[in-house]
């Protein structure tokens, strides 16, 4: 057997690698995505006081710390008996989260994924990065950078810092948004919306006009997400909804605190990332997808007009859409939705209110579920009678997509590598393109931009290197 290793994966958040096992005829026998970093947050936050948790778990990530912060804060609210925040506090949290999703989606699409889509999977490696994009498509690249910057500004004004600030506390928020801050954000929101709208055009056109994109790494699966009271697209708070590959409900309107009855996690020896599955579909058939594609497929409507029109256009292409590369299109629809909702919230009089917190009373257990940029994020905590965490269960967005990403890798390997005598860098990049579509966040904030320290070797059964490819 020959073993090919792609290590590290580039232009994804965090550290991972792919291994391919080829038989004597270079047929793909096995393809695996391994997550090689271990974080251990669930264990080491045990014994810490509950009010520390929303700030502590932010450190899981440098890209989506806000999502972890808010999911934990929602769980802590429930521990503290809070079911409803003040209108200002809830709107501030929603505004914060829209800023988070906007900046994360802009980062992924423009900085990480678009070089593949605009230059081609087999283009020069040196060109396939944000620096290449700035050279080849300067206006577009700059818009991407500015879109991200705007989202980060929303975060900074609410949390005090662009990354790893403080905002949500048990029962509310720690700071009001000043009128000056609101006006500053309103200043260029129309331009942001217009750029976001153009980004949907770009993602749609690339997907629809490039031969082979619809079937690239194609996998069919159920989709899981939060959903609003009227079945609308929901990022901050809602019930759990799941559709099967055909679009029918597997379940709907399940309270998020009931997640444990729906999802189990399987552990495999070769990865630090668990493999969740839907209990009612079983371990083998119960894998599913989350994230922008799941949310756009799952919802009945989007509560902002421009994004809703884009959702209808997306659904007209054959709902539910399963192609992994359609994640990018769905992601840009969400980017537009976030920009529209930010404007709506900034124009709401409550947003600059001063009533930030409700009374709390100590309880024992709480679940907080939020739609992070990459999908459904579950935080579940139990505290002892002294207020210290005694149990923590985190199912992070990328974990839900674990099996789907492995299936996508296998599809690409079988189509592009199976039986080939020599394997090129472009072929290997296709595997990374499939993984990148899911925007995996491997619980870290490192990126490999530019020259990637990747060396791929094919080794025969005797351990002799047959050939090697370097980037």
């Amino acid at each position, binding site marked *: 057997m020959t073993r090919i290793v792609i290590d590290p994966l580039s232009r994804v958040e965090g550290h991972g690698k792919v291994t391919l096992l080829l038989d004597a005829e270079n047929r793909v026998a096995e393809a695996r995505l391994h997550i090689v970093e271990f974080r251990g947050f669930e264990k080491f936050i045990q014994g810490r*006081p509950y009010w520390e948790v*929303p700030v502590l778990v932010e450190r899981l990530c440098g890209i989506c710390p806000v999502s972890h912060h808010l999911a934990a804060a929602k769980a802590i609210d429930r521990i503290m008996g809070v079911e409803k925040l003040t209108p200002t506090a809830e709107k501030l949290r929603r505004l914060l989260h829209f800023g988070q999703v906007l900046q994360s989606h802009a980062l992924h699409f423009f900085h990480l994924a678009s070089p593949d889509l605009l230059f081609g999977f087999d283009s020069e490696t040196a060109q396939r990065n944000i620096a290449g994009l700035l050279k080849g498509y300067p206006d577009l690249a700059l818009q991407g950078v500015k879109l991200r910057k705007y989202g980060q500004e929303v975060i900074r004004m609410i949390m005090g810092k662009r990354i790893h600030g403080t*905002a949500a506390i048990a029962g509310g928020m720690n700071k009001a948004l000043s009128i000056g801050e609101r006006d500053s954000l309103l200043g260029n929101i129309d331009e942001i919306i217009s750029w976001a709208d153009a980004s949907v055009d770009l993602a749609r056109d690339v997907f629809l006009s490039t031969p082979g994109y619809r079937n690239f790494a194609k996998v069919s699966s159920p989709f899981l997400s939060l959903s609003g009271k009227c079945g609308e697209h929901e990022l901050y708070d809602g019930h759990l909804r799941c559709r099967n590959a055909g679009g029918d409900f597997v379940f709907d309107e399940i309270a998020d605190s009931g997640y444990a009855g729906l999802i189990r996690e399987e552990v495999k020896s070769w990865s630090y990332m668990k493999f969740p599955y839907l209990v009612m579909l079983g371990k083998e058939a119960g894998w599913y997808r989350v994230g922008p594609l799941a949310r756009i497929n799952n919802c009945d409507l989007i509560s902002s007009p421009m994004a809703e029109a884009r959702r209808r256009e997306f659904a007209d292409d054959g709902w539910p859409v399963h192609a992994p590369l359609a994640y990018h299109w769905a992601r840009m629809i969400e980017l537009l939705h976030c920009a529209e909702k930010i404007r709506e919230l900034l124009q709401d009089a409550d947003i600059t209110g001063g009533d930030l917190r409700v009374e709390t009373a100590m309880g024992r257990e709480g679940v907080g579920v939020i739609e992070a940029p990459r999908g459904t994020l579950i935080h579940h905590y139990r505290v002892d009678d002294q207020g210290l965490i005694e149990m923590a269960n985190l199912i992070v967005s990328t974990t839900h997509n674990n099996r789907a990403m492995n299936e996508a890798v296998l599809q690409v390997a079988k189509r592009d590598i199976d039986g080939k005598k020599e394997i090129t860098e472009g072929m290997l990049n296709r595997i990374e393109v499939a993984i990148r579509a899911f925007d995996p966040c491997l619980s870290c904030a490192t990126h490999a931009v530019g020259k990637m320290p990747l060396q791929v070797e094919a080794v025969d059964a005797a351990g002799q290197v047959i050939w090697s490819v370097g980037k």
Partner: protein
Amino acid sequence: MKTVSLDGAVVPFAEGQTVMECALAANISIPHLCFLPGFLPHGSCRLCTVKIDGRLASACTQPAMAGQHVEIDTEELRQVRLSLLRMLFVEGNHYCPACEKSGSCRLQKAAYDEGMLDLHYRPWYPKRKMDASHPDVLIDRDRCIFCELCVKASRDVDGKNIFGISGRGIDTHLVVNSKSGLLADTDISAQDRAVEVCPVGAILVKGRGFEIPIGKRLYD
């Protein structure tokens, strides 16, 4: 009037004043941690180390004397303070990113002021027990720097004598004066001076963390 020279500035002092008190009165900064006006100084952290007529001494305990030449802001003393701070960090478990005292912590501020960018020494990772037994007040011993301000405040201001320091070396730790050794069995209150005086995040009022936004904290 009697005077001392503080980094070349001629500063008057009153009989009985220490070098630290004399500097504070003249608005001259000497870095310090365990010293707090109103409490008897004991020079335990040594962060206020200065050079007086060529000899190292803690400014908080050294009486000011006429004609003294005191060096404060020199590269040699900066290195001494940096080493002391690094030792304080590695001898405890100080994780500023998730600490609710971040931004209002005197140890963190001192490290920023001295330009400390790394630990330099190998961390000790001491194992110290948290005491969350009291409904309103929590002790996180990981962050204690043994400044003894809580010991003095509880004894001399609150009149409760709740805290003490026990053990040696890596086993040094804050102890509670109750039969069980737990805070729950004391009459401590969240309003006590002993709670308020802690310069780091070792003694905390429960459930209040992160209420002060970034930008409004003591040292922002």
